[in-house]
């Protein structure tokens, strides 16, 4: 034990003060930097999941955006100004997405923002956009509510929404398997249930019958407890809205148990994607879903797009990459029409806008900010998404349920 006699006044804890000052200056240095930015550049903020379960989707989003930005910059940019993309990781968590979005709007002073993947993040970031008088567009989120009852004047959607996907699938099913007996299996949460409900009403509207319905917990490991029920119902079609890892397990286990023999499996667009297809393997063959894009689309624009994408990213694009590629052209068309990046002018220009994408021409419906496009039914065959059906844009889009503007 040591005795220390203090005879002088206690010294200020210099080290602590130093650390505090350093932290404070670091925290404050950033806005000072931001103010000294190049005003002739158009900055696009991208809040997308770069880590976590959705990192695969975020990666496709990034590839699509990077390719589009590179091409646009090579041909002179927008209104003569170059594009700059600024990325932030939202970790598929709306709380983080909101924080990062605000950082991009306030500190990086972006003119436009995109990249959110899950609908919770899109909705929350849309609010931030309203507060900051900026526009955002989503290229992935397919929840109907985003351009439906929770629509916002500052939120646009360039990808297909769930209702459109269901319409394409229901149409295909009615023409290939009229009066099918459908068993529904979905993950027990809001999105899973509403996707099943949406397809069910579309299908029943075209004459399909319901053989049964069961909801498994999200992240369920083992679906074998449900197979007895499925067998007993003797369906001709099974519709599922599981996604990601759940799909891998469901499909592999169905194949293990022979449940899927002689039954047509259909599902939501997020059920089988390029992120989980390699893990599902052969068990995915024959699966049909409704989507807004397939790499097998036979058009010169798409072929060129795929070649460019392959060269830059060393892999094929999927619908997330394609839609993310298209969004910058959407923005370009709007800004050129408005002759400005001012939010209100661009919003006005975006309404009713038509622009070219790898999937053909899309039209942005003014009433709810939902893009209209031709929809496809695709079938998985040896890791390829073959096109087996088409529905015209006007038939797929569904009614405008947005009442906020």
């Amino acid at each position, binding site marked *: *034990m*040591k*005795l*220390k006699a*203090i005879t002088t006044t*206690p*010294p200020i*804890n210099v080290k*602590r003060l130093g650390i*505090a000052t350093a*932290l*404070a200056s*670091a*925290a*404050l240095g*950033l*806005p*000072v930097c931001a103010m000294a930015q190049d005003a002739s550049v158009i900055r696009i903020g991208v809040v997308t999941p*770069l*880590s976590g379960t959705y*990192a695969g989707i975020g990666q496709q989003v990034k590839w699509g955006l990077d390719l589009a930005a590179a091409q646009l910059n090579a041909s002179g940019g927008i209104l003569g100004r170059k594009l700059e993309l600024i990325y*932030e*990781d939202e*970790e598929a*968590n*709306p*709380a983080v997405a*909101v*924080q990062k979005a*605000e*950082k991009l*709007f*306030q*500190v990086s002073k972006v003119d436009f923002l995109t990249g959110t993947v899950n*609908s*919770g993040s899109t*909705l*929350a970031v*849309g*609010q931030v956009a309203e*507060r900051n008088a900026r526009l955002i567009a989503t290229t992935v989120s397919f*929840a109907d*509510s985003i351009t439906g009852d*929770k629509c916002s004047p500052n939120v646009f959607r360039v990808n297909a929404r769930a209702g459109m996907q269901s319409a394409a699938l229901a149409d295909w099913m009615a023409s290939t398997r009229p009066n099918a007996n459908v068993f529904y299996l979905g993950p*027990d*949460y*809001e*999105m899973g249930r509403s996707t099943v409900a949406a397809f069910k009403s579309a299908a029943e509207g075209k004459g399909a019958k319901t053989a049964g319905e069961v909801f498994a917990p*999200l992240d369920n490991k083992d679906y074998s407890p449900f197979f007895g029920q499925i067998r007993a119902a003797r369906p001709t079609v099974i519709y599922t809205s599981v996604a990601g890892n759940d799909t891998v397990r469901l499909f592999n286990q169905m194949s293990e148990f022979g449940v899927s023999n002689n039954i047509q499996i259909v599902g939501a667009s997020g059920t089988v994607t390029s992120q989980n297809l390699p893990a599902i393997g052969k068990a995915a063959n024959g699966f049909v879903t409704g989507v807004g894009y397939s790499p097998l689309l036979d058009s010169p624009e798409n072929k060129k797009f795929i070649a460019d994408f392959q060269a830059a990213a060393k892999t094929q694009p999927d619908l997330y990459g394609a839609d993310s590629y298209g969004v910058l052209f959407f923005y370009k068309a709007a800004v050129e029409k408005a002759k400005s990046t001012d939010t209100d002018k661009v919003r006005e220009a975006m309404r009713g806008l038509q622009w070219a994408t790898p999937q053909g021409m899309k039209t942005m419906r003014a009433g709810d900010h939902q893009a209209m496009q031709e929809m496809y039914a695709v079938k998985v065959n040896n890791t390829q998404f073959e096109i087996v059906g088409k529905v015209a844009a006007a038939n797929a889009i569904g009614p405008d349920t947005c009442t906020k503007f």
Partner: protein
Amino acid sequence: MHEVTSRSLGHPARALHWLAGLFFGLALVFAIVAWTVGDVFFFRLGTEALIFAGLALSVDLLLGRTGLLPLGQALFFGMGAYVSALVLKNWSSSFWIAIAVALVFSAITGLIGGLIAIRSKGVYFALISFGLAQVVSKIIFNTRELGASDGMIGVPVAQIAPGLESGQPAGFFLVVLSILFILYAGLAYLMETPFGRQLGAVRTNEQRLSFLGVDPWRTKLAAFVGAACIAGVSGALYPMLRGFVSPELMFFQVSGNAVINVIVGGTGTLIGPLYGSALLTVLRSVVGSYTAHHQIVIGILFILVVIVLPRGLIGLAAPALQERLGRREGAVRTPILHADHPQ
């Protein structure tokens, strides 16, 4: 040797008060600087850090002062947030009503949760706390009326006083800072009262406490309810800041982060968790901008602290500071005693 929760009866109170003053002082300096440059983002980020610091404070009340490790404290935080959002959206945009309702709700749910969890100690308590959070967050995740997995947007700003509402970055920052100060000061004072000593006694040796005629069960329950209220009130502030709530606020990630903030900051010091939250919020934001694998960095930092520095940053700084400040409380050196080891 390594103690996380043992604290002698003569802990360096003076140093802790000094460090607390420093914390709030620095926060005020930050506020002045940010206000002069007209900043919005850093104010809101700072407010968010303070809100999560409140959650960390509630964890420290249980972990550092009562000896119970809660792995599901985000439950009360998230519920407070949802209650506040519902009140603001559907009933009244008054800040005070939202906070009051959240407080009452937290007390009631804290009581229920406490009755379930308090009988257990150690890892059992931790797992029950974890499990409760999992179950309730799953229920909310599935409840359409609460926005289900998308959460609820469109929460209006809260009116605090004429001319002061939660949408104002600087104003709300100061309001949250004041609330945090009241919570901290209240807890610090409470620790000096007989109740506070009872908590300390529960942590060091529960059995002996009952021989003294004090019911440890009631003490622990009171601490649990108190912690639930602190977490709930902190949570209630979140939708006022961000205008939305989502089930992710109740997920294990939030509970886990709170525990990390407390351990790194300094368990049992009450001010340590505040420092820890502030530091780690900044760190997560900065590291997250450079790499998607920020969890590795935070995880390694956490492991290092647990092994090398289990008393946390403030736990290390405070005794050293106490000596430098000159006057000592009671004993010549501040020994870290095991109350039940022979000395």
